[in-house]
């Protein structure tokens, strides 16, 4: 066994010296594929993350003619809840609204001196459930809320939301399309590289079979090679991604809104899974690529 391992490792070294351009090409393929894959995974995770955070601020405000008497509040709450579950329903009286406005204006508080609370309409604030934070469903919900007795107008930051929705949607489409293109390109690259490797090895494999090499003699070095390439390639790819991530964070650091959002890198478990998965795939692929040469 020790002797055999020695033979196999010798083969790996020998193969590398013989075919290093092809080997380097496969390594590059792995690196690039992992980089591309994890890049889009990272973007996707962060978009989801940001979407979730921004969604937390979402509420629908129903402006009313008159204040809702405290006794009626549970009734209206349950009526709203029958249409769609809400995380929170808040009844804001004229007085509360006035206090809020005062807080908001702070410095320019004197602007309000002439006005009393009766100038502001009372309202109901509805914080819809996560599952409901979808543009079209919000619109429908808003239409429903407008039918509540005494409702004057329903507001939910339509314009901002629409723009935000537009951008996330666009981002999503771009991410998905580029991702699809890249999966194509990566698959293409991988199959190209495998073909090149097989072409480079073909005559050697044929002759090894003819002089009586066992499957194990032929496969062991390829297996080692695949593992080596998987580990090296994926680590390299993830390192590059991390470098890009850090660079991007520094580069976009000027905006306060941005820092507020806190990007996250891929968690350790995902990183480990990528390295492990790539290594397995590479080892499996390098065995699979010569499968047809294993028959007699």
């Amino acid at each position, binding site marked *: 066994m020790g002797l055999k391992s020695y*033979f196999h490792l010798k083969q790996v070294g020998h193969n590398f010296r013989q075919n290093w351009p092809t080997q380097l090409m496969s390594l590059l393929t792995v690196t690039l594929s992992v980089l591309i894959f994890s890049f889009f995974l990272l973007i996707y995770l962060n978009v989801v993350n940001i979407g979730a955070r921004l969604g937390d601020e979402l509420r629908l405000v129903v402006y009313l003619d008159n204040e809702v008497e405290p006794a009626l509040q549970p009734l209206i709450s349950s009526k709203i809840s029958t249409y769609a579950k809400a995380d929170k329903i808040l009844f804001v009286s004229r007085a509360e609204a006035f206090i809020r406005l005062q807080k908001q204006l702070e410095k320019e508080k004197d602007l309000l001196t002439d006005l009393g609370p009766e100038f502001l309409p009372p309202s109901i604030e509805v914080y819809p459930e996560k599952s409901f934070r979808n543009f079209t469903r919000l619109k429908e919900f808003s239409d429903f809320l407008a039918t509540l007795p005494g409702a004057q107008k329903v507001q939910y930051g339509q314009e901002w939301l629409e723009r935000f929705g537009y951008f996330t949607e666009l981002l999503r489409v771009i991410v998905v399309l580029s991702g699809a293109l890249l999966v194509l390109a990566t698959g293409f690259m991988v199959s190209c590289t495998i073909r090149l490797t097989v072409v480079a090895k073909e005559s050697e494999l044929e002759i*090894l079979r*003819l*002089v009586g090499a066992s*499957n194990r003699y032929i496969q062991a070095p390829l297996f080692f090679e695949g593992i080596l390439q998987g580990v090296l390639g994926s680590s390299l790819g993830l390192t590059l991604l991390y470098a890009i991530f850090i660079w991007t964070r520094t580069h976009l650091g000027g905006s306060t809104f941005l820092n507020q959002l806190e990007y996250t890198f891929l968690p350790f478990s995902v990183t480990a899974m990528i390295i492990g998965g790539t290594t397995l795939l590479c080892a499996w692929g390098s065995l699979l690529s010569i499968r047809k040469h294993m028959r007699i």
Partner: protein
Amino acid sequence: MLKLFPDDRPLVDIVKATKVYPPDIVAVQNISLAVAKGELLFLTGMSGAGKTTLLKLICAIEQPTKGVIEVGGRDLAKTGSAEIQQLRQEIGVVYQDFKLLPKLNAAQNIAMPMEVAYRDQREINSRVDELLAILKMTHKREIQTGKLSRGEQQRVAIARAAANSPALLLADEPTGNLDQDSANLVMDLFEQLNREGTTLIIASHDESLYRNSDYRRVQLEHGLFTNHSSPRQLPLINQ
């Protein structure tokens, strides 16, 4: 060395073998041939007669369309892939087109069958040196075989086939690119191997190889043995 093969029956036993290449090229037709252990057999015949095909059937590179091929008592059609590989380590073949790896040097090419059998490195080196010396190729030891002359390549191919001191050696036109002197060296090597117990089947057009010897000789003609061949009559051999 010969442990894989029993002593009491022909080492190679071909019974009514036919090989048809698609679509309908009959290369070998209903041929029967027995080769005793320790024999040295010449296989002759015109170009295209089916010599190479017959050798390929014996080392399981091609499967017969009909008939049975037994090597060392094993029916090749019923032998698994792993066992075939095992068997091939005991069969040395000089291919007509050499099948060397042009990027490896002469020594590496010759060492291949021994490395595949996980031989000891020192043993490998000394065997390589020995064979190169016998074939007067020592000065080409470190040269890539792609850069050797055709005749030199042929000698490397012969050395590789002989490397494992195989139980059976199949040589397909082993002197086609060699001058008379080199051909004699090769014949000397073959006869030495034969004395050490190797069974040899040599396909050749080169009359000078068998002219002055009394080795058995079978002749193919369009895939059939000609009349004066004696395929199943085993000679008495000193063993």
